[in-house]
Protein backbone atom coordinates (compact mmCIF):
# COMPACT_ATOMS: atom_id res chain seq x y z
CA UNK A 1 0.00 0.00 0.00
CA UNK A 2 1.28 3.49 -0.86
CA UNK A 3 1.69 5.93 2.00
CA UNK A 4 -0.89 8.64 2.65
CA UNK A 5 -1.87 11.25 5.20
CA UNK A 6 -5.08 11.01 7.20
CA UNK A 7 -7.62 13.32 8.79
CA UNK A 8 -10.95 12.96 10.53
CA UNK A 9 -13.04 16.13 10.14
CA UNK A 10 -16.10 16.91 12.25
CA UNK A 11 -18.68 18.21 9.75
CA UNK A 12 -19.81 17.21 6.25
CA UNK A 13 -18.82 20.60 4.78
CA UNK A 14 -15.31 20.31 6.27
CA UNK A 15 -14.96 16.80 4.86
CA UNK A 16 -16.02 17.92 1.38
CA UNK A 17 -13.66 20.89 1.55
CA UNK A 18 -10.78 18.66 2.69
CA UNK A 19 -11.11 16.36 -0.32
CA UNK A 20 -11.64 19.23 -2.76
CA UNK A 21 -8.60 21.12 -1.43
CA UNK A 22 -6.13 18.21 -1.25
CA UNK A 23 -4.93 16.69 -4.52
CA UNK A 24 -5.44 12.93 -4.80
CA UNK A 25 -7.58 12.79 -1.66
CA UNK A 26 -10.41 10.35 -1.05
CA UNK A 27 -13.13 9.82 1.52
CA UNK A 28 -13.00 6.61 3.51
CA UNK A 29 -16.10 5.14 5.17
CA UNK A 30 -16.17 1.41 6.00
CA UNK A 31 -12.98 0.97 4.00
CA UNK A 32 -14.04 -2.48 2.77
CA UNK A 33 -13.69 -1.56 -0.89
CA UNK A 34 -11.16 1.26 -0.79
CA UNK A 35 -8.58 -0.52 1.41
CA UNK A 36 -8.89 -3.69 -0.66
CA UNK A 37 -8.03 -1.65 -3.78
CA UNK A 38 -5.29 0.32 -1.99
CA UNK A 39 -3.54 -2.90 -1.00
CA UNK A 40 -3.40 -3.78 -4.70
CA UNK A 41 -2.34 -0.21 -5.60
CA UNK A 42 -5.36 0.08 -7.86
CA UNK A 43 -6.36 3.06 -5.74
CA UNK A 44 -3.44 5.20 -4.53
CA UNK A 45 -4.89 8.16 -2.62
CA UNK A 46 -2.29 10.50 -1.09
CA UNK A 47 -4.73 11.65 1.59
CA UNK A 48 -7.67 9.96 3.33
CA UNK A 49 -10.57 11.88 4.81
CA UNK A 50 -12.34 9.65 7.34
CA UNK A 51 -16.09 10.38 7.26
CA UNK A 52 -17.01 8.14 10.21
CA UNK A 53 -17.25 11.01 12.68
CA UNK A 54 -19.71 13.18 10.75
CA UNK A 55 -22.89 12.09 12.50
CA UNK A 56 -24.41 10.79 9.26
CA UNK A 57 -25.45 7.48 10.79
CA UNK A 58 -29.17 7.89 11.43
CA UNK A 59 -32.32 6.72 9.64
CA UNK A 60 -35.13 9.26 9.95
CA UNK A 61 -38.70 9.55 8.70
CA UNK A 62 -39.18 12.34 6.13
CA UNK A 63 -42.13 14.78 6.16
CA UNK A 64 -43.21 13.19 2.82
CA UNK A 65 -43.69 9.81 4.50
CA UNK A 66 -40.44 8.28 3.30
CA UNK A 67 -37.08 7.60 4.92
CA UNK A 68 -33.81 9.49 4.97
CA UNK A 69 -30.87 7.10 5.35
CA UNK A 70 -27.60 8.66 6.53
CA UNK A 71 -24.59 8.00 4.29
CA UNK A 72 -22.77 6.26 7.14
CA UNK A 73 -25.57 3.89 8.17
CA UNK A 74 -24.05 0.41 8.11
CA UNK A 75 -25.54 -2.16 5.73
CA UNK A 76 -26.45 -4.38 8.72
CA UNK A 77 -28.33 -1.58 10.47
CA UNK A 78 -30.18 -0.57 7.33
CA UNK A 79 -31.23 -4.15 6.56
CA UNK A 80 -32.37 -4.68 10.16
CA UNK A 81 -34.25 -1.39 10.61
CA UNK A 82 -37.87 -2.21 11.49
CA UNK A 83 -39.27 0.40 9.05
CA UNK A 84 -37.12 -0.87 6.20
CA UNK A 85 -38.08 -4.50 6.89
CA UNK A 86 -41.76 -3.65 6.96
CA UNK A 87 -42.09 -1.07 4.15
CA UNK A 88 -39.02 -1.48 1.94
CA UNK A 89 -38.43 -5.24 2.09
CA UNK A 90 -36.68 -5.25 -1.29
CA UNK A 91 -33.93 -3.11 0.24
CA UNK A 92 -33.44 -5.37 3.28
CA UNK A 93 -33.38 -8.39 0.99
CA UNK A 94 -30.84 -6.87 -1.40
CA UNK A 95 -28.51 -5.87 1.44
CA UNK A 96 -28.74 -9.28 3.09
CA UNK A 97 -27.92 -10.98 -0.22
CA UNK A 98 -24.64 -9.06 -0.42
CA UNK A 99 -21.17 -9.77 0.97
CA UNK A 100 -20.87 -11.39 4.46
CA UNK A 101 -22.02 -10.55 7.98
CA UNK A 102 -18.61 -9.12 8.84
CA UNK A 103 -18.53 -6.91 5.74
CA UNK A 104 -22.11 -5.67 6.19
CA UNK A 105 -21.21 -4.59 9.72
CA UNK A 106 -18.63 -2.19 8.26
CA UNK A 107 -19.99 -1.32 4.81
CA UNK A 108 -21.92 1.94 4.60
CA UNK A 109 -24.77 3.21 2.45
CA UNK A 110 -22.55 5.65 0.52
CA UNK A 111 -19.60 3.27 0.20
CA UNK A 112 -21.86 0.54 -1.09
CA UNK A 113 -23.22 2.82 -3.85
CA UNK A 114 -19.64 3.70 -4.80
CA UNK A 115 -18.09 0.23 -4.75
CA UNK A 116 -16.05 -0.33 -7.88
CA UNK A 117 -16.46 -3.06 -10.45
CA UNK A 118 -15.30 -6.65 -9.90
CA UNK A 119 -14.13 -7.08 -13.50
CA UNK A 120 -11.16 -9.47 -13.17
CA UNK A 121 -8.95 -7.26 -15.35
CA UNK A 122 -9.67 -4.20 -13.25
CA UNK A 123 -8.19 -6.18 -10.34
CA UNK A 124 -5.21 -7.55 -12.30
CA UNK A 125 -2.72 -4.70 -12.57
CA UNK A 126 -0.69 -6.64 -15.16
CA UNK A 127 -3.55 -6.36 -17.69
CA UNK A 128 -4.85 -3.53 -19.84
CA UNK A 129 -7.96 -1.90 -18.39
CA UNK A 130 -9.42 1.46 -19.41
CA UNK A 131 -11.21 1.86 -16.11
CA UNK A 132 -8.04 1.41 -14.08
CA UNK A 133 -5.63 3.02 -16.54
CA UNK A 134 -7.46 5.20 -19.09
CA UNK A 135 -6.35 4.56 -22.64
CA UNK A 136 -4.66 1.20 -21.93
CA UNK A 137 -7.39 -0.85 -23.62
CA UNK A 138 -10.05 -3.27 -22.42
CA UNK A 139 -8.89 -6.84 -21.82
CA UNK A 140 -12.41 -8.07 -21.18
CA UNK A 141 -13.78 -7.48 -24.70
CA UNK A 142 -11.93 -10.56 -25.99
CA UNK A 143 -11.29 -12.09 -22.61
CA UNK A 144 -13.11 -13.56 -19.65
CA UNK A 145 -16.41 -11.73 -19.68
CA UNK A 146 -18.77 -14.22 -18.11
CA UNK A 147 -19.60 -11.82 -15.23
CA UNK A 148 -19.70 -8.62 -17.26
CA UNK A 149 -22.29 -6.34 -18.83
CA UNK A 150 -24.71 -7.36 -21.57
CA UNK A 151 -26.18 -3.92 -22.16
CA UNK A 152 -25.12 -0.28 -21.93
CA UNK A 153 -21.41 -1.06 -22.40
CA UNK A 154 -19.04 0.54 -24.89
CA UNK A 155 -15.98 -0.39 -26.94
CA UNK A 156 -13.96 0.98 -24.03
CA UNK A 157 -15.53 -1.00 -21.16
CA UNK A 158 -18.15 -3.65 -20.41
CA UNK A 159 -17.85 -3.65 -16.62
CA UNK A 160 -20.85 -3.95 -14.33
CA UNK A 161 -21.78 -2.15 -11.16
CA UNK A 162 -21.46 -5.27 -8.98
CA UNK A 163 -23.58 -4.25 -6.01
CA UNK A 164 -26.98 -5.40 -4.79
CA UNK A 165 -28.20 -2.46 -2.69
CA UNK A 166 -28.22 0.01 -5.58
CA UNK A 167 -30.54 -2.25 -7.60
CA UNK A 168 -33.13 -2.08 -4.83
CA UNK A 169 -32.57 1.68 -4.49
CA UNK A 170 -33.27 1.99 -8.22
CA UNK A 171 -36.61 0.17 -8.06
CA UNK A 172 -37.51 2.29 -5.02
CA UNK A 173 -36.74 5.57 -6.88
CA UNK A 174 -34.23 6.68 -4.24
CA UNK A 175 -32.49 10.05 -4.30
CA UNK A 176 -28.83 10.60 -3.38
CA UNK A 177 -28.19 13.75 -1.32
CA UNK A 178 -24.77 15.40 -1.43
CA UNK A 179 -22.89 18.45 -0.26
CA UNK A 180 -19.88 19.96 -2.04
CA UNK A 181 -16.86 21.95 -0.88
CA UNK A 182 -18.79 25.23 -1.06
CA UNK A 183 -21.46 23.75 1.20
CA UNK A 184 -23.99 23.53 -1.65
CA UNK A 185 -26.43 20.63 -1.34
CA UNK A 186 -27.62 18.63 -4.37
CA UNK A 187 -30.20 15.87 -4.90
CA UNK A 188 -29.40 13.28 -7.56
CA UNK A 189 -32.09 10.78 -8.63
CA UNK A 190 -30.60 7.28 -8.40
CA UNK A 191 -31.27 6.79 -12.13
CA UNK A 192 -28.77 9.58 -12.86
CA UNK A 193 -26.24 8.68 -10.18
CA UNK A 194 -24.33 5.84 -11.86
CA UNK A 195 -23.27 6.53 -15.44
CA UNK A 196 -22.61 4.36 -18.48
CA UNK A 197 -18.94 3.82 -19.37
CA UNK A 198 -18.94 5.49 -22.82
CA UNK A 199 -15.40 6.61 -23.60
CA UNK A 200 -14.68 7.59 -19.97
CA UNK A 201 -15.05 4.28 -18.12
CA UNK A 202 -12.79 5.54 -15.33
CA UNK A 203 -15.72 7.66 -14.11
CA UNK A 204 -18.37 5.55 -12.38
CA UNK A 205 -20.84 8.20 -11.21
CA UNK A 206 -21.98 11.78 -11.71
CA UNK A 207 -20.41 12.93 -8.41
CA UNK A 208 -17.94 15.79 -8.61
CA UNK A 209 -14.53 15.69 -6.91
CA UNK A 210 -14.96 16.41 -3.22
CA UNK A 211 -18.74 15.96 -3.38
CA UNK A 212 -19.77 14.09 -0.23
CA UNK A 213 -22.82 11.86 -0.05
CA UNK A 214 -24.75 12.81 3.08
CA UNK A 215 -27.85 10.63 2.72
CA UNK A 216 -30.09 8.57 0.48
CA UNK A 217 -33.81 9.30 0.67
CA UNK A 218 -36.62 6.92 -0.16
CA UNK A 219 -40.08 8.14 -1.20
CA UNK A 220 -43.26 6.83 0.44
CA UNK A 221 -43.42 3.03 0.49
CA UNK A 222 -44.88 1.28 -2.58
CA UNK A 223 -47.37 -1.49 -1.83
CA UNK A 224 -46.85 -4.97 -3.24
CA UNK A 225 -44.62 -7.97 -2.62
CA UNK A 226 -41.04 -6.80 -2.25
CA UNK A 227 -38.67 -9.29 -3.90
CA UNK A 228 -34.92 -9.47 -4.44
CA UNK A 229 -33.74 -12.55 -6.34
CA UNK A 230 -30.02 -12.96 -6.83
CA UNK A 231 -28.54 -15.70 -9.00
CA UNK A 232 -24.91 -16.49 -8.21
CA UNK A 233 -22.30 -19.21 -8.50
CA UNK A 234 -22.75 -20.32 -4.89
CA UNK A 235 -25.60 -19.96 -2.41
CA UNK A 236 -23.98 -17.23 -0.30
CA UNK A 237 -21.09 -14.75 -0.33
CA UNK A 238 -20.79 -14.27 -4.08
CA UNK A 239 -21.60 -11.46 -6.48
CA UNK A 240 -24.68 -11.60 -8.66
CA UNK A 241 -24.58 -13.04 -12.14
CA UNK A 242 -28.05 -11.55 -12.52
CA UNK A 243 -30.36 -10.08 -9.92
CA UNK A 244 -33.93 -8.82 -9.96
CA UNK A 245 -35.32 -6.21 -7.56
CA UNK A 246 -39.09 -6.04 -7.89
CA UNK A 247 -42.21 -4.74 -6.22
CA UNK A 248 -45.13 -6.72 -7.61
CA UNK A 249 -48.85 -7.12 -7.12
CA UNK A 250 -50.67 -10.46 -7.39
CA UNK A 251 -51.85 -9.46 -10.87
CA UNK A 252 -48.23 -9.00 -11.93
CA UNK A 253 -48.33 -5.20 -12.10
CA UNK A 254 -45.41 -3.39 -10.54
CA UNK A 255 -41.82 -2.29 -10.95
CA UNK A 256 -38.56 -4.07 -11.69
CA UNK A 257 -34.82 -3.32 -11.92
CA UNK A 258 -32.00 -5.69 -12.90
CA UNK A 259 -28.52 -6.07 -11.40
CA UNK A 260 -25.36 -7.72 -12.73
CA UNK A 261 -26.15 -6.76 -16.32
CA UNK A 262 -24.83 -3.21 -16.81
CA UNK A 263 -22.59 -0.42 -15.53
CA UNK A 264 -25.54 0.75 -13.46
CA UNK A 265 -28.71 -0.81 -12.05
CA UNK A 266 -30.78 -1.43 -15.19
CA UNK A 267 -34.39 -0.34 -15.27
CA UNK A 268 -36.62 0.51 -18.22
CA UNK A 269 -39.84 1.98 -16.79
CA UNK A 270 -41.61 1.81 -20.16
CA UNK A 271 -41.43 -2.00 -20.05
CA UNK A 272 -43.21 -2.27 -16.70
CA UNK A 273 -46.69 -1.98 -18.20
CA UNK A 274 -46.01 -5.39 -19.78
CA UNK A 275 -45.36 -7.11 -16.42
CA UNK A 276 -48.85 -8.72 -16.29
CA UNK A 277 -48.08 -10.34 -19.68
CA UNK A 278 -45.15 -12.23 -18.19
CA UNK A 279 -41.39 -12.07 -18.00
CA UNK A 280 -40.55 -12.48 -21.68
CA UNK A 281 -42.61 -9.50 -22.78
CA UNK A 282 -40.77 -7.34 -20.26
CA UNK A 283 -37.20 -8.53 -20.80
CA UNK A 284 -37.59 -8.21 -24.60
CA UNK A 285 -38.02 -4.48 -24.10
CA UNK A 286 -35.65 -4.06 -21.13
CA UNK A 287 -32.81 -5.77 -22.99
CA UNK A 288 -33.55 -4.46 -26.51
CA UNK A 289 -30.23 -3.53 -28.08
CA UNK A 290 -28.24 -5.75 -25.70
CA UNK A 291 -24.74 -6.61 -26.90
CA UNK A 292 -23.65 -9.67 -24.94
CA UNK A 293 -20.31 -11.39 -25.51
CA UNK A 294 -20.14 -15.08 -26.39
CA UNK A 295 -19.40 -15.75 -22.73
CA UNK A 296 -22.23 -13.82 -21.12
CA UNK A 297 -25.15 -14.18 -23.53
CA UNK A 298 -26.59 -16.61 -20.96
CA UNK A 299 -27.49 -13.60 -18.81
CA UNK A 300 -30.33 -12.59 -21.14
CA UNK A 301 -32.15 -15.89 -20.66
CA UNK A 302 -31.23 -15.87 -16.97
CA UNK A 303 -32.71 -12.40 -16.49
CA UNK A 304 -35.97 -13.48 -18.13
CA UNK A 305 -36.22 -16.60 -15.99
CA UNK A 306 -35.29 -14.79 -12.78
CA UNK A 307 -38.02 -12.25 -13.43
CA UNK A 308 -40.37 -15.16 -14.17
CA UNK A 309 -39.51 -16.64 -10.78
CA UNK A 310 -40.18 -13.28 -9.12
CA UNK A 311 -43.58 -13.05 -10.82
CA UNK A 312 -44.43 -16.55 -9.59
CA UNK A 313 -43.33 -15.62 -6.09
CA UNK A 314 -45.60 -12.57 -6.09
CA UNK A 315 -48.57 -14.61 -7.28
CA UNK A 316 -48.11 -17.35 -4.68
Amino acid at each position, binding site marked *: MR*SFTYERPGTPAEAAAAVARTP*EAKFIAG*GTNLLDLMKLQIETPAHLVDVNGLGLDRIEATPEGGLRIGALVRN*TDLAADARVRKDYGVLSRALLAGASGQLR*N*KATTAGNLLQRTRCPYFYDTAQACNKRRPGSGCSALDGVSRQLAVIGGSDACIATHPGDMAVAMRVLDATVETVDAEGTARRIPIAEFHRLPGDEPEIDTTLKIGELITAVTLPRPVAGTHIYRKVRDR*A*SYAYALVSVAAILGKDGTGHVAFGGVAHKPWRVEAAEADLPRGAKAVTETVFAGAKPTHENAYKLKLAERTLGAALNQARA
Partner: protein
Amino acid sequence: MSRRDRVADAPVMAKVGLTVNGQRRELDLDIRTSLLDAAREHLHLTGSKKGCDHGQCGACTMIVDGRRINACLTLAVMHQGSEITTIEGLGQPDNLHPMQAAFVKHDGYQCGYCTPGQICSGVAVLAEIEAGIPSHVTADLNAPIEVSAAEIRERMSGNICRCGAYSNIVEAMTAVAGRQA
Protein backbone atom coordinates in the same frame (compact mmCIF):
# COMPACT_ATOMS: atom_id res chain seq x y z
CA MET B 1 4.78 17.96 -8.32
CA SER B 2 1.84 15.88 -7.23
CA ARG B 3 1.02 15.35 -3.61
CA ARG B 4 1.79 11.67 -4.16
CA ASP B 5 5.43 12.60 -5.01
CA ARG B 6 5.66 14.96 -2.06
CA VAL B 7 4.35 12.42 0.40
CA ALA B 8 6.60 9.92 -1.42
CA ASP B 9 6.37 6.64 0.37
CA ALA B 10 7.80 7.80 3.65
CA PRO B 11 5.71 6.22 6.39
CA VAL B 12 3.32 8.57 8.15
CA MET B 13 3.08 7.70 11.84
CA ALA B 14 0.17 8.12 14.25
CA LYS B 15 -0.55 7.40 17.90
CA VAL B 16 -3.42 4.97 18.27
CA GLY B 17 -5.19 4.13 21.53
CA LEU B 18 -7.27 0.94 21.63
CA THR B 19 -8.84 -1.18 24.32
CA VAL B 20 -7.90 -4.75 23.44
CA ASN B 21 -9.37 -7.60 25.48
CA GLY B 22 -10.11 -5.16 28.29
CA GLN B 23 -6.65 -3.61 28.37
CA ARG B 24 -5.88 -0.08 27.26
CA ARG B 25 -3.06 -0.13 24.67
CA GLU B 26 -1.19 2.80 23.11
CA LEU B 27 0.64 2.22 19.85
CA ASP B 28 2.82 4.26 17.54
CA LEU B 29 1.86 2.97 14.12
CA ASP B 30 2.48 3.53 10.44
CA ILE B 31 -0.89 4.87 9.47
CA ARG B 32 -1.27 2.06 6.87
CA THR B 33 -1.36 -0.62 9.59
CA SER B 34 -4.53 -2.70 9.47
CA LEU B 35 -6.24 -3.55 12.73
CA LEU B 36 -5.17 -7.14 12.08
CA ASP B 37 -1.48 -6.25 11.74
CA ALA B 38 -1.70 -4.00 14.79
CA ALA B 39 -2.89 -6.97 16.83
CA ARG B 40 -0.57 -9.57 15.37
CA GLU B 41 2.65 -7.65 14.73
CA HIS B 42 2.51 -4.95 17.39
CA LEU B 43 0.52 -6.45 20.26
CA HIS B 44 1.74 -10.00 19.53
CA LEU B 45 -1.82 -11.29 19.69
CA THR B 46 -1.35 -13.88 16.97
CA GLY B 47 -4.62 -15.73 17.52
CA SER B 48 -6.36 -13.78 14.77
CA LYS B 49 -5.11 -15.12 11.47
CA LYS B 50 -4.34 -13.60 8.10
CA GLY B 51 -5.78 -15.78 5.36
CA CYS B 52 -6.40 -13.54 2.39
CA ASP B 53 -5.90 -9.97 3.69
CA HIS B 54 -8.79 -8.93 1.38
CA GLY B 55 -12.02 -9.56 3.28
CA GLN B 56 -12.65 -12.87 1.57
CA CYS B 57 -11.95 -15.57 4.17
CA GLY B 58 -12.93 -14.39 7.67
CA ALA B 59 -9.76 -15.74 9.39
CA CYS B 60 -9.12 -12.25 10.80
CA THR B 61 -12.59 -11.81 12.34
CA MET B 62 -12.58 -9.78 15.57
CA ILE B 63 -15.41 -8.30 17.62
CA VAL B 64 -15.07 -4.51 17.56
CA ASP B 65 -17.45 -2.35 19.58
CA GLY B 66 -19.77 -5.35 19.77
CA ARG B 67 -19.75 -6.18 16.06
CA ARG B 68 -17.76 -8.81 14.15
CA ILE B 69 -15.65 -7.34 11.36
CA ASN B 70 -12.77 -8.35 9.07
CA ALA B 71 -9.78 -6.81 10.85
CA CYS B 72 -7.73 -6.97 7.63
CA LEU B 73 -10.00 -4.46 5.87
CA THR B 74 -9.86 -1.67 8.39
CA LEU B 75 -7.09 0.64 9.60
CA ALA B 76 -6.08 0.67 13.26
CA VAL B 77 -6.02 4.48 13.10
CA MET B 78 -9.76 4.44 12.30
CA HIS B 79 -10.39 2.64 15.60
CA GLN B 80 -9.13 5.24 18.04
CA GLY B 81 -10.85 4.37 21.35
CA SER B 82 -12.56 1.19 20.08
CA GLU B 83 -13.17 -1.86 22.28
CA ILE B 84 -11.69 -4.89 20.57
CA THR B 85 -12.11 -8.55 21.46
CA THR B 86 -9.87 -11.11 19.81
CA ILE B 87 -9.90 -14.86 20.34
CA GLU B 88 -7.39 -14.36 23.21
CA GLY B 89 -9.92 -12.20 25.03
CA LEU B 90 -12.87 -14.52 24.51
CA GLY B 91 -11.40 -17.29 26.66
CA GLN B 92 -8.13 -18.84 27.77
CA PRO B 93 -6.98 -22.48 27.86
CA ASP B 94 -8.04 -22.89 31.51
CA ASN B 95 -11.12 -20.73 31.12
CA LEU B 96 -12.71 -21.54 27.75
CA HIS B 97 -15.57 -19.53 26.32
CA PRO B 98 -18.58 -21.84 25.81
CA MET B 99 -18.10 -21.52 22.03
CA GLN B 100 -14.45 -22.59 22.32
CA ALA B 101 -15.46 -25.56 24.48
CA ALA B 102 -18.16 -26.52 21.98
CA PHE B 103 -15.67 -26.39 19.07
CA VAL B 104 -13.44 -28.80 21.00
CA LYS B 105 -16.29 -31.11 21.93
CA HIS B 106 -17.82 -31.19 18.42
CA ASP B 107 -14.52 -31.32 16.52
CA GLY B 108 -15.18 -27.97 14.83
CA TYR B 109 -11.72 -27.75 13.28
CA GLN B 110 -8.86 -29.71 11.79
CA CYS B 111 -5.75 -27.58 11.14
CA GLY B 112 -7.18 -24.76 13.26
CA TYR B 113 -6.13 -21.87 11.02
CA CYS B 114 -9.63 -20.55 10.40
CA THR B 115 -10.79 -21.40 13.93
CA PRO B 116 -10.18 -18.14 15.84
CA GLY B 117 -12.14 -16.30 13.16
CA GLN B 118 -14.87 -18.97 13.13
CA ILE B 119 -15.25 -18.76 16.91
CA CYS B 120 -15.36 -14.94 17.04
CA SER B 121 -17.85 -15.00 14.18
CA GLY B 122 -19.86 -17.77 15.83
CA VAL B 123 -20.21 -15.83 19.08
CA ALA B 124 -21.30 -12.72 17.18
CA VAL B 125 -23.74 -14.66 14.97
CA LEU B 126 -25.68 -15.93 17.98
CA ALA B 127 -25.78 -12.37 19.34
CA GLU B 128 -27.05 -11.10 15.96
CA ILE B 129 -29.86 -13.65 15.91
CA GLU B 130 -30.69 -12.75 19.52
CA ALA B 131 -30.80 -9.06 18.52
CA GLY B 132 -33.26 -9.86 15.73
CA ILE B 133 -30.98 -9.02 12.79
CA PRO B 134 -32.38 -10.93 9.79
CA SER B 135 -30.37 -12.86 7.20
CA HIS B 136 -30.72 -13.84 3.54
CA VAL B 137 -32.48 -17.09 4.55
CA THR B 138 -34.87 -15.54 7.09
CA ALA B 139 -38.28 -16.38 5.59
CA ASP B 140 -40.31 -13.60 7.24
CA LEU B 141 -38.49 -10.31 7.75
CA ASN B 142 -41.03 -9.23 10.37
CA ALA B 143 -41.15 -12.35 12.58
CA PRO B 144 -38.80 -13.48 15.37
CA ILE B 145 -35.78 -15.42 14.07
CA GLU B 146 -35.15 -19.06 15.03
CA VAL B 147 -31.66 -20.46 15.40
CA SER B 148 -31.58 -23.12 12.68
CA ALA B 149 -28.86 -24.90 10.73
CA ALA B 150 -29.86 -22.87 7.65
CA GLU B 151 -29.53 -19.58 9.55
CA ILE B 152 -26.13 -20.58 10.96
CA ARG B 153 -24.80 -21.72 7.57
CA GLU B 154 -25.86 -18.51 5.82
CA ARG B 155 -24.54 -16.23 8.55
CA MET B 156 -21.20 -18.08 8.72
CA SER B 157 -20.59 -17.90 4.95
CA GLY B 158 -17.96 -15.18 5.45
CA ASN B 159 -15.74 -17.69 7.26
CA ILE B 160 -14.06 -20.11 4.90
CA CYS B 161 -12.58 -23.40 6.14
CA ARG B 162 -10.12 -25.13 3.85
CA CYS B 163 -10.37 -28.29 5.96
CA GLY B 164 -14.13 -28.41 5.53
CA ALA B 165 -15.07 -28.53 9.22
CA TYR B 166 -18.36 -26.81 8.39
CA SER B 167 -20.86 -29.40 9.56
CA ASN B 168 -19.16 -29.76 12.96
CA ILE B 169 -19.05 -25.97 13.32
CA VAL B 170 -22.82 -25.87 12.80
CA GLU B 171 -23.18 -28.56 15.48
CA ALA B 172 -20.99 -26.65 17.92
CA MET B 173 -22.93 -23.43 17.40
CA THR B 174 -26.28 -25.20 17.64
CA ALA B 175 -25.19 -26.70 20.96
CA VAL B 176 -24.18 -23.30 22.35
CA ALA B 177 -27.41 -21.70 21.12
CA GLY B 178 -29.41 -24.47 22.79
CA ARG B 179 -27.66 -23.82 26.07
CA GLN B 180 -28.30 -20.08 25.77
CA ALA B 181 -32.01 -20.54 25.09
